[in-house]
């Protein structure tokens, strides 16, 4: 029987309920139903990392999660990173280091990099590059992104 499913979840520390079809990805649900369009669709098959969100403390590509799987879980999207108008220091570091050009990959990179710094405050460059291997950027050549994340890692160390 083709029926929509009622999903109760927590997004960016707020209780959220939505109706979705079982075949809709979490990415579609976030963007098209909940209206959180900060999370971007790139490849839609798990290769590019643009749609990265945090699902119960692990980063995942939301194009490869079903919306119905969000039931009872905790999700953090790019909209949950800044504190009101106060940018997170990673967001600020991306600006200062010019770590973005077209910007499509940026929300995914910020969400993924923040998850790294939350669990490991002082990663070295190799660790940062390995952690971010699932995020693709076609503009920057990665160096500026890695520099921005490294800067935050150094700040944490200081």
């Amino acid at each position, binding site marked *: 029987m083709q029926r929509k499913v009622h999903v109760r979840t927590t997004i960016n520390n707020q209780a959220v309920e939505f109706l979705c079809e079982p075949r809709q990805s979490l990415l579609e649900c976030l963007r098209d139903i909940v209206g959180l369009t900060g999370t971007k669709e790139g490849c839609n*098959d798990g290769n590019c990392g643009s749609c*990265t969100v945090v699902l119960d403390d*692990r*980063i995942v590509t939301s194009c490869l999660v*079903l919306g119905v799987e969000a*039931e009872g879980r905790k999700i953090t999207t790019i909209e949950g990173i800044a504190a009101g108008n106060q940018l997170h220091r990673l967001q600020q570091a991306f600006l200062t280091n010019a770590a973005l050009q077209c910007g499509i990959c940026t929300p995914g990179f910020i969400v993924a990099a923040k998850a790294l710094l939350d669990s490991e405050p002082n990663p070295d460059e190799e660790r940062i590059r390995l952690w971010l*291997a699932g995020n693709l950027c076609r503009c920057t050549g990665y160096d500026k992104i890695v520099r921005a994340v490294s800067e935050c890692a150094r700040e944490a160390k200081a």
Partner: protein
Amino acid sequence: MKWFDYAAPKTLSEALALLAAHPGARMLAGGTDLLVQMRAGRKPADLIIDIKNIAELNELRYERASGLTLGAAVACYRIYGDAAVSRAYPSLHQVASLIGGTQIQGRASIGGNLCNAAPSADSIPLLIALGATCRIAGAGGERVARVEEFCTAPGKNILAAGELLVSMHVPAPRPGSGASYLRFIPRNEMDIAVAGAGVAVELENGKFRSARIALSSVAPTPLFVREAGDWLTGKPVNGESIAGAAEIAKAAAKPITDMRGTKEYRRHLCSVLTRRALETAVRRAQEVQ
């Protein structure tokens, strides 16, 4: 994606009942293969059964005497995040860390890698080398199969209609044993193996007591090269023995030429990767002796 229904049973018997009533259902663990295939219109299903809420499929338990029980839905990050498992099986830690990127490892399971039965699956040669077995459940009861029997063709496995993979069991590492998996990809991360070699050895008094070698991406299924490991048995642990086994592995490979590499290149890789994986496995075995 075409319409499908979704169920998230909490027990194995509930899942098996659903599966019996919907022979076209497919299992969802991490979804990193399944959802890509469904979106592409390959292997459609009218029901997706999310198996992540079932205790047996989520079990990750290592005991020194009995070995490792690895539930079919356990995500890669749980394996490399578990200190006891990583210490007992450094090769499994290694494989769980090289499948996909961080996001994929947060979802993808070794059980899913096995059921997806890709010739290039990174975890399967290692599971074969480690002598792992599969616990399979169906309406008629349970059975056990060896991992080397599990894949039957690209994307096909021995699960009959109504059956599902519950868990894998990896024997406890014996004293003087070591294992490794090595693959070749042109990038550093996030790629599909051009070829790969999974090996496990057991050493005793400077000789190979036993060895098991399996290859990825060089046959329609992950390839167990029993004769290469058997040949090593009783041989002294040195470069000559290792090179000999690597040549047997190379001769057993049946690769094709495709965009990732030619068959000649893949055969060459089998010899190099088997040799290097054996060297690492031997070093690990000597460290724990």
